[in-house]
């Protein structure tokens, strides 16, 4: 076994003094300590520390510990229960007035949103429709042509009873 002090593994000596080494490791430490004064000294002083610490018993737990703890838990439960009750009461008090209007508004908004979504074209990448300005241009031309035709017909029509006959036959 290498010297635990020189190899910076002194935790093994501490474990030995604490009785936490297995028998094989404990025997190895003992064999080493027989030939290593530094480790022997460390083991001796560490045992003294271990024994000194055993002098220090903690006082017994007071009888009222559990009672106080449960009282604190109960107090917390009550306060959290009181908060829950208060919240429920507040909701119940205000519910006839306050919840119907927001729900109605929310439903209306949802309906509008749904309508917008339904009306939107499914394929946004499709080419845009013909510009309406061109349609208007076509209509005006047609109207102008019609008016021109009517004017021409009026000019061509003869004046007199025959003309009335022609126009009534048209």
């Amino acid at each position, binding site marked *: 076994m290498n010297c635990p002090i020189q190899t910076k593994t002194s935790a093994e000596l501490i474990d030995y*003094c*604490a009785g936490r080494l297995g028998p094989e490791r404990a025997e190895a430490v003992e064999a080493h300590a027989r030939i290593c004064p530094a480790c022997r000294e460390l083991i001796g002083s*560490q045992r003294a520390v271990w*024994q*000194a610490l055993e*002098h220090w018993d903690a*006082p017994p737990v007071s009888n009222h510990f*559990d009672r106080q703890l449960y009282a604190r838990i109960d107090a917390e439960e009550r306060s959290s229960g009181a908060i829950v009750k208060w919240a429920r009461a507040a909701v119940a008090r205000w519910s006839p007035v306050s919840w119907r209007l927001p729900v109605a508004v929310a439903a209306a908004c949802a309906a509008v949103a749904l309508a917008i979504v339904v009306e939107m074209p499914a394929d946004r990448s499709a080419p845009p429709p013909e510009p309406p300005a061109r349609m208007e241009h076509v209509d005006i031309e047609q109207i102008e042509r019609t008016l021109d035709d009517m004017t021409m017909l009026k000019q061509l029509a003869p004046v007199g009873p025959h003309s009335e006959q022609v126009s009534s036959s048209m």
Partner: protein
Amino acid sequence: MNRGDRPETQPSVRNRVTTDMEAVAALERDAELMLRVREGDAASFALLLERHRAPVIHFLYRMVQNQSVAEELAQEVFLRVYRSRTTYEPTAKFTTWLFRIATHLALNWIRDRKNEKAQESLDADTQEGGARQISDGRPNVEQRLVYEAKLREVRQAIETLPAKQRAAVLMHKYEGMEYSQIAATLNCSESAIKSLLFRAYETLRARLAHFA
């Protein structure tokens, strides 16, 4: 070194295996109890309290060296355990989690009280609890004085340690925790804990070696 020098506490392999198995079973039981507490079982919380009350209070007592403060902090520990019941997940050992809470509270208390005069409470508590802590029947006055002097020396030696070293020594010595568990509790690596403990025991050896 003679074989007779081997510490009496060195366990046999069979004893050690049995102890380890019992420890594993106990850990599983703790996690199971805590899961039942999560389900609203108050009796399981009472069982956990019964199992861990004394170790937690004793650890805190040795950390802060004042019994009433230790009990107050311990109540806070168990209260936090109870509050955390709904979010508890058995990802770490229950005792590691418990002692992490306890250490956190103790270190905070020590930090807050660092500038206050702690010696007063130490002396008062020694006078109050000294006689009670003697376990060997009826000591005479001289024995009692010697015992109290030794005890004061031990307490002062522990108190002079930096708070983290103190916590590590107390968990190692009195709670019998493994290095890995102490490391998890103090949020350090295992090698850092070994080094921390070695430095702490070095200080204690310098102060308490004459007890041999």
